[in-house]
């Protein structure tokens, strides 16, 4: 919804929150959208009712169906520390601890010694740490914790930041300890209200009127900003981030038109005002690539002109930085659909950046779900894109850092495949090697990330948190496997997850999915072969497969049938159940991937 996109009007959202919620629910119903259910417990150190109300709006707008638990007023610590039947029964996926500097119990006094202040700091931190550990022990779920915003007065003036008696200094040090804990703990995330309040303006954020009147620890009009930030963390954890940034060239990546001005006439040089602005923007885009965002060009130009521009000495981004370059005179929506096929990524994981409002509209109308920031003029581009946090990184995995290279290798594979008459010959030429093993602690983050973002080759679309996976992989009655794949072009990393649940000598396949990078490579056959052999090993005689249709997984509708399963049930929603008797001569299906034997 446009009202909830940057730059939104916080006051408007608070005023119309009931109407906005009604409209969101209407549009969900009309489009028969499938929502991801998520249970969130908000444990507050001050009033949280509008925090919950706004968080609901932003999550609904991002394809979630949230359910909330709200702690009693300022009981965040007690509710987290001690047995809490209501919270246990609620079984949260996420606990959001909404605390602010109003909740700090021990501030430094001017008469304290350095050591006394150090003690206070440790004690204050420990109070939080005890609470986080208690939550981890009791609920094994994701925890999102506010850091501390600054106070809006400084007894020591500028010295408040420097001297250990200063509140500013104290808050900085406490925050640093929060971050250290976050770095050491998966499933623990910081919501950075220090940054939010700085952007909003600390004087407005810290308006005491709302504190004394209603015990709101911040300006109510800023709550949508806070809720937006929390919803972005949740989006990222649930794999709803964008993956591709498609960018226009003329007057977006550089000033001027390369077809008319020539590569030398473009504005991106160090010695002009606008040239500097375009260069800074190019650097920002290049940095996106470094965190695993795939860059693509989509420009109405002759390809040769576009390449000349990108190859010019002044240009910071080079053709090699892009996963694909579309420079032609087709409609941009057509090019984006082609890109989507080539990269095997859904268009809704794309962000489209173009200075031309007409082009933006053409793409917006034809491609649903694509994100298109309203950019205005070059000096504002970075903020207008960045504040949307399309690529919010809650955890940077090794695969993220290599992703651009992996996709490029994939594009090469697609080209190669055209040279072979017989597809199996092509697959053999890739010299694929797979490693298929039980999931252990090292793979939890990546396997959960894959489960939560794979849509196409995903039989059950089962989503889970790292906490849930950590439990499943320990339990005897589960077979939890991952598969990683290497070929002559490079490593693909972990690309498949299969979960089987064993009951009465039957293995129910709760999850079976592949990364879209390796669809049509027979990796699914290798996974099934290994599952069958594991099952035989455990004396299991039968596999049950399940297919739950969604808008995106039609590709695998007949997967179990193709693998020789027999359909035993189908309900009115098209959910199907399949059965395979594995004792009766199952023969391995994979013939093209060399699978590493288990130890």
């Amino acid at each position, binding site marked *: 919804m446009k009202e909830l996109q940057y730059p939104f009007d916080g006051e408007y959202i608070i005023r119309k929150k009931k109407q906005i919620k009604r409209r969101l629910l209407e549009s969900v119903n009309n489009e028969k959208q499938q929502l991801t259910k998520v249970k969130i417990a908000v444990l507050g150190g001050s009033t949280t009712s509008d925090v919950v109300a706004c968080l609901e709006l932003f999550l609904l707008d991002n394809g979630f169906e949230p359910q909330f638990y709200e702690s009693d007023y300022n009981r965040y610590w007690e509710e987290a520390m001690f047995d809490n039947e209501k919270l246990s029964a609620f079984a949260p996926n996420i606990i959001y601890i909404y605390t602010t500097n109003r909740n700090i119990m021990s501030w430094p006094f001017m008469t304290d010694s350095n050591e006394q202040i150090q003690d206070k700091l440790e004690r204050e931190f420990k109070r939080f740490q005890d609470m986080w550990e208690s939550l981890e022990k009791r609920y094994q779920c994701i925890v999102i914790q506010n850091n501390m915003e600054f106070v809006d007065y400084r007894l020591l003036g500028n010295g408040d930041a420097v001297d250990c008696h200063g509140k500013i200094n104290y808050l900085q040090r406490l925050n640093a300890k929060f971050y250290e804990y976050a770095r050491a703990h998966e499933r623990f995330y910081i919501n950075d209200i220090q940054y939010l309040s700085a952007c909003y303006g600390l004087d407005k954020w810290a308006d005491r009127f709302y504190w004394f*009147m209603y015990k709101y620890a911040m300006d*109510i*009009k800023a709550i949508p900003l806070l809720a937006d930030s929390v919803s972005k963390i949740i989006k990222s954890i649930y794999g709803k981030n964008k993956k591709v940034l498609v960018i226009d060239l003329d007057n977006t990546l550089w000033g001027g038109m390369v077809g008319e001005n020539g590569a030398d006439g473009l504005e991106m040089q160090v010695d002009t005002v606008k040239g500097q602005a375009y260069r800074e923007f190019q650097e920002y885009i290049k940095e996106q690539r470094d965190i695993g965002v795939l860059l693509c060009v989509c420009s109405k130009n002759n390809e040769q002109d576009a390449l000349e521009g990108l190859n010019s000495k002044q240009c910071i981004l080079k053709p090699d930085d892009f996963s694909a370059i579309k420079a032609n005179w087709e409609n941009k929506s057509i090019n984006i659909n082609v890109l989507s096929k080539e990269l095997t990524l859904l268009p809704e994981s794309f962000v489209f950046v173009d200075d031309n409002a007409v082009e933006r509209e053409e793409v917006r109308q034809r491609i649903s779900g694509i994100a298109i920031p309203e950019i205005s003029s070059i000096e504002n581009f970075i903020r207008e894109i960045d504040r949307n946090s399309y690529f919010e990184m809650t955890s940077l995995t090794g695969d993220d850092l290599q992703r651009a290279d992996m996709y490029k290798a994939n594009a090469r594979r697609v080209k190669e495949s055209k040279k072979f008459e017989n597809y199996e010959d092509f697959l053999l030429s890739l010299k694929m090697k797979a490693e298929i093993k039980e999931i252990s602690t090292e793979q939890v983050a990546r396997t959960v990330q894959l489960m939560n973002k794979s849509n196409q080759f995903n039989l059950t679309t089962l989503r889970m948190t790292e906490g849930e996976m950590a439990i499943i992989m320990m339990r005897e009655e589960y077979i939890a496997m991952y598969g990683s794949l290497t070929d002559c072009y490079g490593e693909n990393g972990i690309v498949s997850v299969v979960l089987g649940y064993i009951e009465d000598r039957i293995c129910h396949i709760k999850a079976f999915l592949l990364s879209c990078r390796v669809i049509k490579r027979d990796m699914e056959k290798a996974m099934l072969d290994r599952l069958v052999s594991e099952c035989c090993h455990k004396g299991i005689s039968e596999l049950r497969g399940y297919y739950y249709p969604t808008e995106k997984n039609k590709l695998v509708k007949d997967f179990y049938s193709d693998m020789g399963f027999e359909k035993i049930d189908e309900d009115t929603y098209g959910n199907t159940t399949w059965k395979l008797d594995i004792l009766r001569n199952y023969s391995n299906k994979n013939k093209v991937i060399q699978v590493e034997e288990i130890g």
Partner: protein
Amino acid sequence: MSRDEILEKIQEIFRDVFDDEQLEIDEQTNREDFGEWDSLTHISIVMELMQVFNVKFTMDEASAMNSVEKMIVAIVERGL
């Protein structure tokens, strides 16, 4: 601004906050005979009044503001 004009703007705020396009209020409308007007919606109403009329109420005023009439009086006192 006349009292009627002020009342009209307050009515728009009430309609938004209670999400009821048909809602009619008058100066006599007060918290006692308006069940949905709880403390949480009161916060939004007060915040909106300050925003729409570009005034800042003191905490005393905001606490005492339990009827539409008192809102109008507080705004008229600001010379608007």
